[in-house]
């Protein structure tokens, strides 16, 4: 499926939108009923003169997650977190505050840490998204994840995926961070259980081993 550079939406969907221009007049009704038709309620594209208007019903969204393409139908008002958890079953990314204050939902977008609860999924179209599932698997842990185990850097484990993602990005940018830099690197990740010191030790451990 080709992407439209302007809207970031798959071309196919825009075609459907255009073909179904006739629905426009009845958009409010269509939006409720015809969920299976992507972009049914969307506006028309008159060669870039009129902007795309998506939703409120589901549209098809293609994201690149953990190095593979994932397609789903979801309302454009869906946050990236909800899309990952509820539509893709990638439940490693956690929801705690849903307001950008805790970091449990941290994922990487083009290598940078973001709170996936505080952005729309459609704004991640075209970016490389990495979730905790893309960092390591139980059979194939990353060095950092192994270090978390060695240093007991998790208790209940709820903040842990976010912590691991933040620390992975930190090590990527700075392979041998000092303690202050590690503290700053995880300043957006809250741990209720109080594992900060262990997380710092885990990063140091992974860093000594030259891993990520």
């Amino acid at each position, binding site marked *: 499926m080709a992407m439209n550079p302007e809207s970031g939406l798959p071309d196919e969907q825009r075609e459907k939108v255009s073909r179904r221009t006739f629905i426009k007049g009845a958009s409010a009704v269509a939006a409720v009923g015809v969920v299976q038709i992507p972009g049914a309620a969307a506006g028309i594209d008159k060669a870039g003169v009129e902007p795309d208007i998506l939703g409120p019903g589901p549209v098809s969204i293609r994201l690149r997650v953990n190095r593979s393409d994932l397609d789903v139908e979801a309302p454009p008002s869906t946050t990236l977190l909800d899309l990952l958890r509820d539509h893709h079953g990638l439940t490693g990314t956690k929801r705690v505050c849903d307001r950008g204050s805790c970091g449990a939902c941290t994922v990487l977008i083009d290598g940078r840490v973001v709170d996936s609860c505080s952005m729309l999924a459609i704004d991640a179209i075209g970016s490389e998204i990495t979730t905790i599932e893309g960092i390591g698997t139980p059979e194939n842990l990353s060095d950092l994840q192994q270090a978390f185990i060695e240093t*007991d850097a*998790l208790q209940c484990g709820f903040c842990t995926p976010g912590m691991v993602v933040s620390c992975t990005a930190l090590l990527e940018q700075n392979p041998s961070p000092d303690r202050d830099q590690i503290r700053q690197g995880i*300043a957006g990740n809250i741990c209720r*259980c*109080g594992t*900060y010191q262990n997380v710092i030790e885990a990063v140091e451990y992974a860093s000594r081993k030259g891993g990520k």
Partner: protein
Amino acid sequence: MCWASTQATFGFRGELSSSWGKVNASECRVLCEYVGGGFGSKFSAGREGVIGALLAKQAGVPVKMLLDRSGEQTSAGNRPDSLQKIRMGVNKDGIIQAVQIRSWGTPGTGTGGAGAHNDGIYKLGEVDKVEYGVRTNCGGARAHRAPGWPQGSFALEQMMDMAAASIEGIDPIEFRKKNDDHPIRGAEYDIARERIGWDNDRIRGGAGSICSGVGMASNLWFSAGGGGASALVRIAKDGAVEIRNGAQDIGTGTRTVMGMVAAEELGIPLEMVSTRIGDTNDPQGPMSGGSTTIGTLTPAARLAAHYAKKELLAVVAERKGWDPTDLDIRAARVIKNDGSDTGLSFQEACALMDDDAIEVLKARPRRNYAGFSDTNAGVQAAEVEVDMDTGVVRVKKVVAVADAGKLINPLTAESQVRGGVTQGVSYALHERRIMDRQKGRMLNDDLENYKILGSVDCPEIDVVLIDVYNGKSNTQVMGLGEPPIVATAAAVANAVADAIGTRIFEIPITPKKVLEAIAKKNAPAGGKTKKGARL
């Protein structure tokens, strides 16, 4: 069937069966392989759990019930506030003669659970204590890690420092020692004193723009375990070993520790044991509360593993014509009592079974042995730095000396203490509900203004674990979940007082309160602050 995030799978099951009505508890099944956090608020199914179950029953379809952050903070219970008044009488030798304590706690619309525990740690002489629960229409109370203890400690330990200060020539630690007869804590004070740098020179008492101070407080817990718990150990013919119990792991490492005890008893490495928990179809287990989970579970685990091993060795003895009492297992090898190898590995021994598996279910004894120490004691010392210009307090270091009975897993034990201290510092400096005095609504039902200590604020935590063989059970474990949060806020408050030269009697110790305390201290003696006067 219910998947729950709970601290008490079996208790949850009981609540479900009573709310579903006419359903036997044994017909309900509660599953909880992972809890997420649990610090007291998940003892009960709560309204949220019961409502979810009822909805599912009525609708006949699965129902997922999830409180969002605000719902969690407004409807799932609070750590009660506490207001206390303490008077203490001390003789000129520094011996406490009598204490009067009045406390008012907020259990919400419920009753109870809002007392302040502070009369158990020191020898206080005559104690006159009355606790009141003040009902408030601001959401109910739920337990929070060591319910009532940090509150009680915060008040009493400041009183201890003030009393010490009123006696010529006694420092706060000496004063505590004089009034404390716990056999273990006596030694702990000195360890804490040395490691926090109690006697170092520092700019204290408000004398510089950055001032530093140290403070100390003690804690106590009774957590050797108790109540019913059984464990099932299964050794299969193919060598697979499994231990099962239906209780939950709230992040304290229960799963790992249960496996470790079984592995130790069976003489095999931990990797060979798989542990199954969090399913009420498995043998009964305790709730995670009162720091008793491990103390309650591990004796059952050891007993079950012990008898399973005996059965296995009996099979081996019979097949090989050896004396079963001369056999043991170590490092996954069957050995003789003199230590010599029989040439048989654990795996090979299992293969000798006729049946598919050996299964042993054992319960712990209902009561602990007398032992020689019923309580586990601890001491914490905090070092703080206060910016006198801004009132910002940074806790630089906390030394936590903790007695945990016999340590099973020092790594997870140390993590528990670090966690308790971290939460304690958070409680001391940041945590509070902000209730709108006009509408009675909580204004900080979020993680933005309900502030929780973060990585940059977290002090260096120096944990000293003291291994105490107390003879209370076959594992001699004392729980370690709650004790480490008891003393922290009090130690921080005492350290702040040392740093700024005046006391703050209210937590959290925010920049606002520090600045107000400094202003009050610096206000010209006798002169009342004029209305509108610039501080």
